[in-house]
């Protein structure tokens, strides 16, 4: 585990040193055959892939290509029920995934997404997909979050705890 994170090429075998892989972006992307094989192997062996759409736009190119790649590599993702364990494994999120200010401000696709999406692997989440652009807000200064009803960084803690314990 790299507590501060590590940037690893998906095509590298070093990816298997990090069973929680976080993928984000706003440009279209395609897996190479090696990357696809590695990602599939990582998830099948118990790892977890978290993809966050930096565009927070279901009409955007990142979302469209990511969905295609997930479907091609695994299967099309489904809405994750809001009572899933990931919402209570550390902090409690009784209403499901916390919203981001981008959603509330109507940016991107102008939607507040009620659910995250997931591909389940053996009863646990293998691929978690978010259209909420958590990654933009998780690095905000705490001062910028003081007006938030819920600090959605807490959900990031849940994702890590879930990946480490399930």
């Amino acid at each position, binding site marked *: *585990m790299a507590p501060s994170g590590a940037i690893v090429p998906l095509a590298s*075998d*070093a990816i*298997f*040193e990090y*069973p929680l892989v976080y993928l984000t972006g706003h440009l279209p992307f395609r897996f190479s055959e090696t990357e696809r094989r590695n990602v599939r192997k*990582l998830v*099948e*062996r*118990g*790892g977890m892939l978290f993809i966050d759409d930096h565009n927070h736009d279901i009409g955007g190119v990142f979302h469209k290509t990511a969905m295609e790649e997930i479907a091609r590599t695994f299967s099309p993702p489904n809405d994750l029920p809001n009572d899933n364990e990931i919402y209570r*494994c*550390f902090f409690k999120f009784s209403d499901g995934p916390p919203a981001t200010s981008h959603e509330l401000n109507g940016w991107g696709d102008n939607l507040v997404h009620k659910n995250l999406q997931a591909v389940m692997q*053996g009863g646990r989440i293998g691929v978690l997909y978010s259209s909420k652009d958590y990654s933009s807000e998780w690095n905000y200064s705490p001062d910028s979050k003081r007006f938030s009803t819920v600090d959605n960084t807490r959900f990031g803690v849940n994702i890590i*705890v879930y*990946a*480490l*314990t*399930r």
Partner: protein
Amino acid sequence: MRIRSEQALRGIVIVVLAVMLWQSLHVQGDSGGRAVSARGIGRATLSNWSSFSKAPGRLHVQLDSVPSKIEQAWLGALAGAGSSVTWSGGLAATMIDAQPIASPTGGTKVLVAAPSGSSVVISDEVGVIDTLRPHDAGASVTLNSVTDRLSARTKNSIASTGVRDSVVLHKILVIGEAGWESKFTIAALEEEGWKVDALIRVAPGVDVTQGSAAIDTSRYSAVVALDAGASPYANRIAEFARNGGGVVLGSGAASLDAMAPLRAGAVGRSTSVSRGVQSGAVVSLATLPLAPIASLRSDATPFEKRGTAIAIAAERVGAGRVLQIGYEDTWRWRMSGGDGAVSDHRLWWTRLASSVARAPRIPRTTSTMPSDEAPMIGLVAAVGSATGVQPRSGLSGNQSDAMAWLFVLLTLGLIGEISSRRLRGAS
């Protein structure tokens, strides 16, 4: 002179004939002190030997196969009646035992003892299952599914046993810090069918729990304590072991002072972290980091070694069993291993858990068939071990030799007497 010689020869012939007649009549009339032998035994042979008015002095049988229990008892009875019963033959001492495996997937471990290098055919009521070649007089095979009765057949011996017991298994409790080792240990056990509770420490004083926190043998068959996350539970784990529970200690947990009563040995300095992934090599059990178990306690047993270093050791603590493992970061084996790494990692963890798990046995009511786990035992108990004496058919060795010499004497006497008469022209 010549005529007297002929008369002497005639006399010798008559005496010899008389002796042979007397001997044959004497034997028929009284078998006491007689030695008899036979190749193989059967009910008829045993019945015949038992019908003598006096028990034969010595009985010897050359065996091609292990006699049945009735025949063994019969030989024992003859020995008890005063006969000296011996046997010879290259019978292979064969033994079979079947033990239920303490695992959610069930299965039976079949243990066989037979001469090294011999071929032992394992069968159940459906048919042949496998053929084993024992080394150091022993071999074993794990079977997922068998009928109630198993047999081990060598060329001249059949041992059989019934699958008599099943086991009661409870959950496994995994205790450790939040990390990949605890995650993938739980995953491996769950995927193999174990019901797993977990106490995962995610922050000081904060545990993520899955299931009950009460550590006792009514809830758990085994506890897997991986690292320092088990520290607050050390006393309860020790009590659990003393009460009959099984414990698997990772090197991180074994190095805790509080775990000293459970340690099989001291935790040595860990080898460097596996560089298998970085170098592109496939990670396996052999390349995992290892904290060797040193200064093994006198009552502990080394189970597995890497080179000269002890990798796994076991010991009894009270009524329970403790297994201390030196391998570290086994999750790397699962994630970066070869094609079979996931199942290998899964099986490895379930075997560790199975080897210590408290699993009370429940007799199976279906196993009522007779069995003979070690057929040679009854024979040896009845008449002793094999002797090197070779069998002779009919009379004993001394009697047969005497009869042969008498016959030679008789023949020479007759030839001499007739030749002498012919040579002198008499009719």
